[in-house]
Structure formats: C-alpha cells, structure tokens
C-alpha cells in the first residue's frame, strides 16, 4: 500500500505504569512494562488485528493510541498530527475521528442513562447537534446497528449482551469517526451472537470506510476480520504481517506456537496438524527477561537470545519479525527446524 494512505503511525510507543511503595511518602520502586517500544502503521480502510495473550499489553496499546493513557514516550501520528502533545480542546477535536468499542458491554454502558442518552452524549459533548436533531440522529444510529429506534427510551439492563454491544457500536459511530479501536468487542459474547456483531462491524466498515484496530485474543476471529495482523508478546510486537502470510508462514516461534494452540472445530484436521506446546507461563512484565522476551518459553532459544534483543526487521515484503533465527527457518516449519537441530 502506498505511503500516503497511512492513517495512523505509531513509533516507539512506550507505556510504563509506575509501581509505588509507601503511605505518606510514595516512591517508585519499579514499573510495569506494559508497552515497551512498539511501532506500526495502520492504513486507511484496513483492519489491523492485534493479538496476544492476556496481559501482553494489547488493550494498553489501544488506549494509549487514543490518549486515554498518556504514553511514557514515543509518538502517535494520526492524520499527520502527533497526538501526544495535544491537550484540551485540540485533543477533543481529534478525538471525534477516533472512537473506541469496549470489551465488556455490561460495564461500558452507564446503567442510569437511557440508550438514547448514551448514544446521544457524544453529539452533545462535541456540540454537533442539539435538541430534536439529536433524537433524529440517535434513531438513525440505532437503526444502523440493527436496533429498533423505539429502544432509545430504555435502559441498558433491558438488553442482552449482543444488543448492548450494538449500543456500544452506535455510540462509537455517533461522531462519524474514521478510526475505531475495537478492544475485544466480542469476547464477552456468546458464540452465536459473536458472528452477528462481527458481521455488523464488517458491514459498517464497508459503508463508512472505517479503519479498525481490532484487539482480540481469539486468533480465528482475528484472521476472519483483519487484513493485517500484529502478534504481541509481553509488551512488544514480535511479528506483524499480512493475514494470510502470517497464518501460512509464521516466522516467529511464538506465533507458530500460538497458532498451533488454537483449537480447530474439526476433529480430522485437528488430529493431523503439528502441535507446539509451550512450557511455563508468561513472565512478569515488571521484570521482563533480558534480550529476547520470549526466550524463557522458546523451544529454540540459544545463548545469543539472552544477550541481545533481536532486531525488528523486514524479512519479506511487508513481513516483519523480531527473532534472531527468522531467516534460518524461513522455508521450513519450526517443528522441522527443531528436528534438524
């Protein structure tokens, strides 16, 4: 894709949360390295999937991009403007174009507001409509996400999970944004309802030329909805690539293990594929391992992995990877590579 189509450029984004000790005099004794220097672009009209295990910094990344968390360092350029130094009115102006859909539809809607108030609030805050105009717009938005406009006077508790998530989508769309961060929008929903919401998101994307950052831990759903996918592990991105490229030829051992761990709803295919089972757990982000972060669980780690952080480099066109040995098994699967060693 051409350079000029970049909608969002994230460079060396870092977000550390301080850990403090002391009751009266607080001093910082450490930091949670939630996001530790990540860079990626999002092109106009595409969906970038961000996957990783819980606690690897996916949601923090999403929130830091929208400046809901202020980054420790780095830059976030949206439409060519660096957001991290913007304050107050100027930031609010930019926020019209970037919205968020939250994970938990039970917690992200105010139970004391009616659906109409919830969906109409962004319009009120940003002063883009008033009075009966708001009501019309709300009715419109509700219809757009497949809800009956008469629902505007009801409260969130009267709706099911899937319907609530539709309300969240309507709220995100209220200001006609160009970019939406979807933070695990379906993981709290039942399987049969998940498909409904995913289809809705796809339809809306086509209709309004939306760009999505789709955060999820469900690799099969991410494969379904994304154009490109970035895999995150312990605060860093280890491998971003085109969707099919990533699934057909994953180069980072973590990506390969992650893919092989996803259950396939087909007993025949499931029985025949290679399985790489990782040992141990994800290390603590307070003290991430030296060198390569994945080395403590990596089946092919060597001494160099503990000493040097692997370069984040483009191995093939559009396919980046942060592993010392990426080139060595470019053509072979990890299992083959392990066998040869």
């Amino acid at each position, binding site marked *: 894709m051409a350079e000029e189509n970049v909608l969002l450029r994230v460079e060396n984004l870092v977000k550390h949360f301080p850990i403090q000790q002391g009751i009266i005099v607080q001093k910082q004794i450490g930091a949670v390295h939630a996001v530790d220097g990540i860079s990626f672009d999002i092109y106009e009209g595409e969906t970038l999937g961000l996957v990783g295990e819980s606690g690897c910094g996916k949601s923090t990344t999403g929130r830091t991009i929208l400046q809901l968390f202020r980054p420790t360092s780095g830059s976030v350029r949206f439409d060519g403007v660096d957001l991290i130094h913007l304050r107050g009115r100027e930031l609010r102006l930019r926020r019209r174009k970037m919205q968020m859909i939250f994970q938990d539809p039970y917690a992200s809607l105010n139970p004391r507001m009616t659906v109409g108030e919830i969906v109409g609030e962004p319009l009120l805050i940003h002063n883009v409509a008033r009075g009966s105009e708001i009501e019309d717009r709300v009715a419109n938005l509700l219809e757009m996400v497949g809800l009956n406009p008469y629902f505007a006077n009801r409260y969130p508790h009267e709706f099911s999970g899937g319907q609530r998530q539709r309300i969240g989508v309507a709220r995100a769309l209220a200001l006609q944004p160009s970019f939406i961060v979807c933070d695990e929008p379906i993981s709290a929903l039942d399987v049969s309802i998940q498909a409904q919401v995913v*289809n809705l998101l796809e339809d809306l994307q086509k209709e309004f030329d939306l760009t999505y950052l789709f955060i999820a831990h469900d690799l099969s759903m991410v494969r379904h909805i994304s154009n490109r996918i970035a895999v995150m592990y312990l605060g860093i991105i280890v491998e971003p690539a085109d969707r099919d490229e990533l699934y057909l030829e994953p180069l980072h051992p973590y990506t390969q293990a992650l893919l092989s761990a996803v259950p396939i709803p087909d007993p025949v295919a499931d029985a025949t594929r290679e399985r790489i089972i990782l040992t141990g757990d994800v290390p603590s982000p307070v003290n991430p391992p030296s060198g390569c972060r994945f080395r403590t669980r990596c089946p092919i780690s060597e001494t160099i992995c503990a000493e040097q952080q692997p370069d984040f480099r483009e191995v093939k066109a559009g396919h980046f990877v942060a592993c010392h040995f990426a080139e060595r098994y470019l053509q072979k699967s990890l299992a083959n590579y392990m066998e040869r060693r």
Partner: protein
Amino acid sequence: MSNVILDVQKLEVTFKTPAGVVHAVNGISFDLREGETLGIVGKSGFGKSVTMMSLLKLIPSPPGKVRDGKALYFGEDLITMSNVQIRHVRGSQISMIFEDPMTSLYPVLTVGLQLEEPLILHLGMTLNRARERAAELLSMVGIPNAKDRLNDYPHQFSGGMRQRAMIAMALSCSPQVVIADEPTTALDVTIQAQIMDLVRHLRDELGMAIIWITHDLGVVAGLGQRVLVMYGGFIIEEAPVKELFANPLHPYTLGLLGSLPRVDAKSHHRLVSIDGLPPVLYEKPNHYPFAPRCKYAIERCWQDNPPLMTLGPQHKAACWVDAKTGKAYQHG
C-alpha cells in the same frame, strides 16, 4: 461396546426465583461408558453445568430442585442418595474440575493441605503418607519442585498452575469419572493447549471416563469421543465427534459450526449468524425451543417438541426437519 457406568434418565431440574420458575434441565437422558470422553457443548445458561452439579447434589436446594429423573452410577441412583452416601461418591468416585481456578481453590489454605484433605478423608491415609502422595500428584500434573510448592498458597500459583493443581486434586483418589466444567475457559490459548495435552496424557495413562463441558467446539474436536449438544435445557444432538463435525444434523449445530471462523480457513467468507436471541427458560416450553430462531421451522415444531431420534448409527438429533434438504422427516 464397553460398560455403561453412568446412566442418566429423564433428569429434570428447576430453580425457583422471584421472577418465576426457571426450567434449567428438561428431562434429559444420556449415558457414559467406561473410559470414554464425553463432550457437552452449548452456550452458557443452557443447563450444562446444572446437569452435572445435580448429579453430585451440588445444587443449592432451595432454590434448585431435581424434579424428576434418575442417575444410575453402577446401578445406584445418585439422586436419591443421602448426603452421607453421596459424600463417599463425591471426590472419590466422581470428581469435578471447575471452570475458574482462581475462585475454586480456598485462598487461606495451602495447596498442599487442600490436596491432602481428600486423601485423608476418602482413602484414610496418614498425614505423612498423604503429604508424599500430594507431592507425587503435583509432579504428575507437571508442576516443578512439587514438594516445595505444597506449602504455597493458591495466589502464589499462576492460572495454569492452579488449574493443574485442581486436576491433581480431582485425580487424587483415582476416580472412575471426572467431570470437567469448562476447565480451560479462563485460560490463555497456549496454557489451554498445555492443559488439554495434560488431560489427554492422564486419560491414556489412568483410563478414567471424562465428561468435558465446554462452549468451544474446537476444544471438543480435539478431545471428545462422543458429543452431546444442549440447547435450552434439552439435548438436541448426540453423535461421535467425527460424525458430528462431518455430518451435523440439527439446525442449531449447523448454525454453531457456521458461525465459527477457523484459524486454518482458506478464504474469507461471511459468518453464518443465528438470528434472534436464546430462549428464556422461565416457562416450560411446550414447543421446540429452537423454533423461533430456526430457518427450517415447520408447523409441527410449534406444537410438538421433537424427542431425541436415532437418525444414523450412533447419531441422534431432536428435529422434525432434515436440515440438509429442509424437508420434514417421514418417520416419527
């Protein structure tokens, strides 16, 4: 065919709530054979867990009540057992692994103590012997330095390790049946793969029968031998795992399979969504519970609830319509 060890007949469970009586399980029957792994699939709130809990009398009563039915375990009815009798079955004959390893371990007792308790109670071991056995069990489920870890409290274990400890606990008295209630739902995929691998391994080694409750069809595909699909408190399809995925007969199962994107998908296709909402279980349905969401529904579905009918070798489904052709079956 191997022996049936658990035979559940017409089990019916209700809960009394201020809003009305919830019909959680509506007269279901199934059996479990020696050494087999039975998967139970269905969305949350469709009676999967309630069924299993009622077998072990773990349902708080009131409000819960087993209205009807039998659960014959080696010929003895679990439902009519007294509390004293069932206590000898629970944990030693039939044990359970719960969904959330964060909340199902007792936080103020060490993992070691919690592991030793069933050994002392059920097997009459001495404290020292139980301690040794507990360390063996922990290392069997793949926890390193098992002896030292016995003195740890649950919060010192990670999620995956807690679930391993739960599994060790469930297996401690060599039960005939292990009921695993969504044991991997709270875990990350790489940890889920570890746990599934462990269970597969232990199953082959120890030969117990497993009932694996899940909402994830992918997990069942990798582990189960026979599958029951539940909807609205009914069993709507029963088949060997390969048969179910190759040849699903019930429209709900079809929809469920179509709504799942696959990680090994070759091309992008639109997901099949099941329209409408799951049923509310406040009244006992007099029609077929899936009818309002089913695109094949015919008149008969609204009048007559289909029983589980045998439609192929070992394959049963509760549906009046052949979902492949959209025509009603001639029999029944």
